[in-house]
C-alpha cells in the first residue's frame, strides 16, 4: 500500500475567544485513506476539518499538505483549496445557479477550463452521482440527498486530491442518507483520500480505514474500525460507543 502522506498535522491548537476548541491535535492521513472523525457535538471534529482547508485559521501548530507546510499568512490558500475539496452539512449550493452552473463555476472561473470541456466533465460527474437528468434544474427543486450529491460533484469538478466531508448526512431525512453514503463509498473505492466527520457509525465501520475519536478538543483514540468498534481501549470511547449504539 502506498504510504504517501497527504495531510500531516502537528500540535494544532485553535481557540474561539476563551473557548479552547482544539488542544494539540496530531494526525496523519495517508493517500487513499478514509478517515472518519467521530465524537460528540462540541468535541472539535468539525473545527479540525475546517482547519484542514483553512476556513478556520489555526492558532498554532503545523499543517502539512502533501509534504509542504502551509503558512496561511503567506501561502496562496486558494491554490491549496483547489486540491482539497469540501462538502458541507448544509450543501451550500449556489441557489441562483442551475446544477450545471454550480459545477462548472469554479473550474471555469478559477482554473480557466474551457467551457465546453467543463460542461462535458460536469455531465460525467453528474452521471457518476446519478443525477444526469438534473442538469438544468435549480437547487431548490432537488431533495436534500440530491443536493448533497450535486455538492459532491461540484467539489470533484476541481479534481481535488483530498475530500473533506463535514457531517454530509446530518441535515438529511433518514431515507435520503443512503444515496449520499453510497456515492461517498464509491469515491472511497476509487481511492480518494477522504476525511469524514460523521455520526453514521455503520458507514464508518464499513468504509473507514481509520477511526479517530475526539473528545473535548483532543484525540482520545484512533484505530482501524474492527479494533475500534469491537475492542475500544479507552474508557471514554467505550462510553461514547455505548450511547451512540443505543441511539
Amino acid at each position, binding site marked *: 500500500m502506498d504510504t504517501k502522506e497527504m495531510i500531516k498535522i502537528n500540535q494544532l491548537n485553535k481557540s474561539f475567544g476563551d473557548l479552547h476548541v482544539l488542544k494539540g491535535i496530531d494526525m496523519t492521513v495517508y493517500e487513499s485513506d478514509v478517515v472518519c472523525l467521530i465524537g460528540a457535538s462540541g468535541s472539535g471534529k468539525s473545527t479540525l476539518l475546517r482547519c484542514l482547508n483553512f476556513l478556520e485559521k489555526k492558532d498554532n501548530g503545523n499543517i502539512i499538505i502533501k509534504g509542504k507546510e502551509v503558512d496561511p499568512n503567506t501561502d496562496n490558500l486558494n491554490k491549496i483549496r483547489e486540491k482539497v475539496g469540501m462538502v458541507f452539512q448544509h450543501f*451550500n449550493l*449556489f441557489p*441562483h*445557479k442551475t446544477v450545471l452552473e454550480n459545477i462548472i463555476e469554479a473550474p471555469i*472561473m478559477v482554473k480557466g477550463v474551457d467551457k465546453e470541456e467543463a460542461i462535458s466533465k460536469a455531465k460525467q460527474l453528474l452521471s457518476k452521482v446519478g443525477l444526469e437528468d438534473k442538469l438544468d434544474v*435549480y437547487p431548490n427543486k432537488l431533495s436534500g440527498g440530491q443536493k448533497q450529491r450535486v455538492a459532491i460533484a461540484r467539489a470533484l469538478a476541481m479534481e481535488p486530491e483530498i475530500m473533506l466531508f463535514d457531517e454530509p448526512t446530518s441535515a438529511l431525512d433518514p431515507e435520503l442518507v443512503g444515496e449520499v453514503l453510497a456515492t461517498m463509498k464509491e469515491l472511497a473505492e476509487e481511492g480518494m483520500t477522504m476525511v469524514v466527520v460523521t455520526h453514521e457509525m455503520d458507514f464508518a465501520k464499513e468504509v473507514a480505514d481509520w477511526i479517530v475519536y475526539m473528545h473535548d478538543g483532543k484525540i482520545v483514540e484512533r484505530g482501524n474500525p474492527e479494533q475500534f468498534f469491537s475492542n475500544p481501549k479507552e474508557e471514554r470511547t467505550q462510553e461514547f460507543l455505548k450511547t451512540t449504539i443505543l441511539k
Partner: protein
Amino acid sequence: MERKEVATLPSFSHFIQTLIETKSVFLKAMLLTIELTVVSILIGIVIGLFFALLKISKIKVLEFISDAYVYLVRGTPLIVQIFILYFGISGIFLLPDFWAASLALALHNGAYISEILRGSIQAVDKGQMEAGRSLGMTKVLTLRRVILPQAFRRALPPLGNQFIIGLKDSSLAAFISMNELFNVATTLGSNNFDEMTYLLIVAIYYLVLVALLTFVVNRFESKLAVSDR
C-alpha cells in the same frame, strides 16, 4: 392671521381640456424628470454598492467612512444637499444645473441604497462564501459571482421602493430651476391663476411614472426569480 386662499376643484371638463392642451409641455418636463431619476438612481447604485462594500470590509477606517457618509446624508434634508451642491460646489467649479441636481439626488439615494445593499449582502448565508472559498475562488470572485447576485435579488423590493422615492424626490430639483414636472406645474399654475388644475395634472404624471417604474421593477424581480420556480 392671514387666510390662505382656498382653491376650488376644477370642473372635470376643464381638467381634461387643460390636460390635453398642456400635454407637450408636460411631456418635455416628464422627460427631464425621467433623466434626473434614471441618472441619479444609476449613480446612486454605484455609490451605494461602494459604501456597502466599505461597510462590510471589516476594516475600521473604511467602516467609519461609510458610517459617516450615511449619517451625513440621512441627517440632512435633501433640499439642503441640493442647494449646497448647486451653490457651494458652483463656487469652486461650475456644475451644470442638471448635474448639480443629479449628483445631489444620487448622493442622497446612494446612502439609502448602501444600507439596503449592506443588509441584503449580510443576509446571504455565510455558507455561500465558504463554499466559494472551498472551491479555490478568491473572496472578491465569490463576492462577485455568488454573493452579490443573491444579494441584489433580495434587495430588489426595497430598491424598487427607493427608486420610487427617488423619482418623487426629483421634484425638489425645481428649486434650482430645473424645468422638470413639478416646476412646470407650479409655474403654469401661477401664470394662469389655476394652481389646483395643474397640481392635479402633475399628480397624474407622477402616478403614471410610478406605475411604469413599478412594472419594470416587478418584471426584473420575476426574471431574477427563475431559480425559485
